[in-house]
């Protein structure tokens, strides 16, 4: 195994200088997704105008892969039609599930093809997908708040984003 295939320079660049980071107004939907096994978290906002992804903003905590992926994802989908962006999400998901066998279409996925190497590391695929899943969830809520509410329980149990363990506050003596 060659680690450089995971920690591509592009990934390290996005990690060091993330794009679109910070939570911004206005937004239509905000979601919080966590990766309970490693503690990666992202809070992400989406603004959709006339079927176009107007803005994606986020605050995230996590490893270099998850941080870089949030940066790459937001840069890729901002300005795209929602349907086109969802198509990119499916392509990225397929790339991440390829176990190192796919390269990804650079014309379409741009910097996101740098994550191809991550797909060889099953434990890290979730990291690369975290912000994409959060974006997809937030976009569904932004586009159709009623339908999103109805399917909320489903998205909360999706493998990439299981619900956080809820830990109560200490009861004061």
């Amino acid at each position, binding site marked *: *195994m060659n*680690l450089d295939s*995971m*920690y591509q320079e592009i990934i390290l660049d996005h990690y060091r200088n993330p794009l679109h980071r910070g939570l911004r107004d206005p937004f239509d939907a905000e979601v919080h997704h966590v990766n*309970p*096994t*490693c*503690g*990666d*978290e992202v809070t992400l906002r989406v603004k959709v105008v006339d079927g176009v992804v107007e803005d994606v903003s986020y605050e995230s*905590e*996590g*490893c*270099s*892969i*998850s*941080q870089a992926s949030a940066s790459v994802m937001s840069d890729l989908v901002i300005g795209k039609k929602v349907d086109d962006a969802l198509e990119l999400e499916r392509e990225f998901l397929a790339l991440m599930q390829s176990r190192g066998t796919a390269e990804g279409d650079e014309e379409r996925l741009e910097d996101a093809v740098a994550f191809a190497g991550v797909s060889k*590391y099953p434990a*890290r695929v979730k*990291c690369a997908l975290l912000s994409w899943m959060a974006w997809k969830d937030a976009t569904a809520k932004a586009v159709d708040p009623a339908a999103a509410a109805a399917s909320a329980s489903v998205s909360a149990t999706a493998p990439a984003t299981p619900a956080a*363990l809820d*830990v*109560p506050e*200490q*009861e004061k*003596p």
Partner: protein
Amino acid sequence: MTVTEPHPAVLASGYDVEQVRKDFPILSRTVHDNLPLVYLDSAATSQKPLAVLDAERTYYERHNANVHRGIHVLAEEATALYEATRDKIAAFIGATDRREVVFTKNSTEALNLVAYAMSNAETTGVEAARFRVGPGDEIVITEMEHHSNLVPWQMLARRTGATLRWIGLTDDGRLDLADLDSIINDRTKVVSMVHQSNILGTLNPVERIVARAREVGALTVLDGSQSVPHLPVDVTTLGVDFLAFTGHKMCAPTGVGVLWGRLELLEVMPPFLGGGEMIEVVTMEGSTYAPPPHRFEAGTPMISQVVGLGAAVDYLSALGMPAVAAHEHAITAYALDALASVPGLRIIGPPTAEARGGAISFVLTDDTGRNIHPHDVGQLLDERGIAVRVGHHCARPVCLRYGIPATTRASFHLYSTTAEVDALVEGLHGVRRFFSK
């Protein structure tokens, strides 16, 4: 009871870790491109010596049958092997009666067994009064519990309307006992705590807390998942009512754990799972339950794993738990010193080896002071063949308490060496170089 011969590694002079390592075939394998494996993840699960592998294999090759219910040779042999482990465990933890040893699938099940028994107490007679909990009663745990000793008590509190309370932590990873007398009070029904923390490494002052619990008549449960495999543990000295531990962390196979409980308590404790083996008389209208331990061992148990656990106990006894503890203490002290030399590294937990075990959690920053996420640390160490664990280690409240998303944890066992610690430290320097470039 079998008397085990001392292991050759402890016969000659002190503790010969290289000799011990020869018993663990996996430790001599290589990973990636021919790198020696540096296994520093024993707090998650220990490796298994040949004697344990052989015991399971021999069991299946020669003695396999269901236990307790046959009158043929194999059934008797299988039962004898299964029950022999009960004796070995009793001796290993200083229990006075073999009936106090209940086999479960792991610590998690052992802890759930007690928590569920407590909410089943309404369904049995007055003799189970000590196990009853309801609104107004309090359940006490600590902030450093593994989720396996946290969630079952949250669930018990929700089922019964009791209140969950906990003992907090000091900045250096110890229990904050300042308010002990108000946290454990007349309303407390049960106190459940970890003996040695899997994330902080802290060895807790059990006697002190048990003394307070006794004053108020509360039951005490000890999670020995990280102590029984590493130190001499004696239930009589500790004075607890229940002790849970898990085989796979003490050189035994996965799939077997133990709940030890005081006989007088087990005799009145309501069962958790119903089924075959745990009954006395069954009619369509109702059933009476078998005495302990069988009352708590419903269904066909994990027979080969129990046999493997017996072999693991023999193995540990031959080395001698005081020798194991001394070896691990030395490695821990060495590691704490060595890790202190890594710039940007902060230990989460007690900084010295005093009252502390060999699970060492830390966070790391690069040259600019930026955090290097544990996931990245673990990945780069793996590239060197070094296995550590990253994440919240099933103790997320501890990470919340110290304001960190996760830690990297190196953990040791009876086969760990100072050379492995050196490899870790060198690896960590490498991680910092990679992210500082």
